[in-house]
């Protein structure tokens, strides 16, 4: 066995181990799971949002988040942008954000509330190698901060760029995101705080399957009012939070190229790298050791000859 072949061999070995681990985990966590049949969800009717930011205030209080940078009735936040002109996103102190979109041909701007979509088969969950995440039967995707090691894999895996990190502790940065008010409300059958606080009734809380049929009835009842698509019904295997809009979703910051497959199916290759790093090192070190001894053995042999 020459050196190149040997290294190829040990790499393949490492990959095989990683792949096996990944498949088992994917089966258990996602696979053909498709979501809990009776899970709850939220239907967000974006046409009704007036951008009052009450939902942001409600979330801040319910989740005991730090004081905001600006008052929740300060609408200058809609003019704020991140680097590269991107709209505001969720942060470790804001689990939900409302953004304003000026849409050509629409009389008024459209406001879009945004938070974790609580995927049926969450990429954050399947990508997490310490199993910090749980998808509860009620529909929420929650996490255990005690288990989180702050590796940020979920942040990269999430198709909606939701999880962020708390940097308040430099030693142990921990994931932060919307938990659908699981601990304080959802668990007890109550709607999330933001849903209940919204003065416009933008969000409807209910069983996910009821919301899907409601959404299609609403589209059918008022032809021309809504775009004929329920965002989140099929995207990345379906999400608990779904959206209705009167303008094409791609014009208001939604990724419309995600497809109906759970994100894990696309990023498997990338995600395999994380456990691979852990599994490949022993194999590599063994390889180096063997190489070194073999070299020595060869030397001895040639000396003999």
């Amino acid at each position: 066995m020459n050196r190149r072949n040997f290294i190829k061999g040990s790499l393949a070995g490492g990959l095989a181990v990683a792949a096996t681990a990944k498949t088992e985990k994917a089966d258990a966590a996602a696979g053909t799971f498709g979501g809990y049949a009776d899970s709850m969800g939220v239907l967000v009717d974006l046409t009704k949002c007036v951008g009052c930011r009450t939902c942001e205030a409600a979330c801040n209080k319910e989740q005991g988040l730090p004081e905001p940078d600006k008052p929740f009735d300060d609408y200058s936040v809609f003019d704020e942008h991140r680097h590269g002109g991107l709209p505001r996103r969720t942060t470790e102190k804001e689990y939900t954000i409302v953004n304003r979109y000026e849409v050509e041909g629409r009389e008024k701007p459209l406001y879009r509330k945004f938070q974790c979509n609580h995927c049926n088969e969450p990429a954050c969950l399947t990508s997490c190698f310490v199993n910090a995440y749980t998808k509860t039967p009620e529909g929420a995707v929650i996490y255990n901060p005690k288990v989180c090691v702050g590796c940020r894999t979920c942040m990269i895996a999430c198709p909606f760029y939701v999880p962020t990190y708390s940097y308040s502790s430099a030693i142990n940065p921990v994931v932060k995101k919307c938990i659908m008010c699981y601990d304080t409300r959802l668990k007890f059958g109550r709607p999330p705080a933001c849903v209940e606080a919204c003065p416009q009734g933008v969000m409807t809380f209910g069983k996910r399957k009821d919301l899907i049929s409601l959404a299609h009835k609403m589209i059918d009842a008022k032809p021309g009012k809504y775009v004929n698509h329920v965002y989140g019904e099929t995207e990345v295997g379906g999400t608990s939070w779904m959206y209705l809009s009167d303008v094409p979703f791609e014009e208001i910051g939604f990724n419309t190229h995600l497809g109906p497959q759970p994100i894990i199916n696309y990023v498997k290759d990338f995600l395999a790298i994380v456990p691979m790093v852990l599994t490949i090192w022993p194999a590599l070190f063994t390889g180096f050791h063997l190489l070194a001894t073999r070299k020595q053995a060869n030397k001895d042999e040639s000396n003999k000859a």
Partner: protein
Amino acid sequence: MSLKRGKLIGLAAIIAMASPFTQPLNAVGEVFELSSLSNLYEGVSFDHDMHIEAASDNCAACHHHTAGTPTQDPNCIPCHKNSGEAESAACSSCHEAEPFTSANLEKTANTPYLHHKEKPGLMAALHQNCLGCHSEVGGPLGCQDCHTMTDKGEKYYNTGKYAPKPGKETGHH
């Protein structure tokens, strides 16, 4: 909307979850206090006469099919063309103050009436109706044009005397 104090004290009818207003016809000529949100805000005084005038006596503009004038909504007409005046035309007699209790979720899921499935809760019904019309006719639209925030409200919105101190802004990543 300014508070018409004299009128309000004598005639205030409270539309709230605790005391649903049930006699719609007597509502003509009154100023209501809408107080279902009175936690974060003071009650809102609502001049019914002024709004009847603004709607040119077309009760259906706000009350759908329940107040005697026929509905014009094509989705309601098939069932409610001749249904006449309802026992109560108060918003709160149909729109639930807490729309998402498990009992209400069940009711909504099982209702045979297609267009009642998307019936908003009380707070949403009021705001959708008010803001919908106000944005068409140029009525007040800002939250505090109608609502006066309470101390609790200022705390909730981190505003007024609870506003964050300037200068500690961290911005977005």
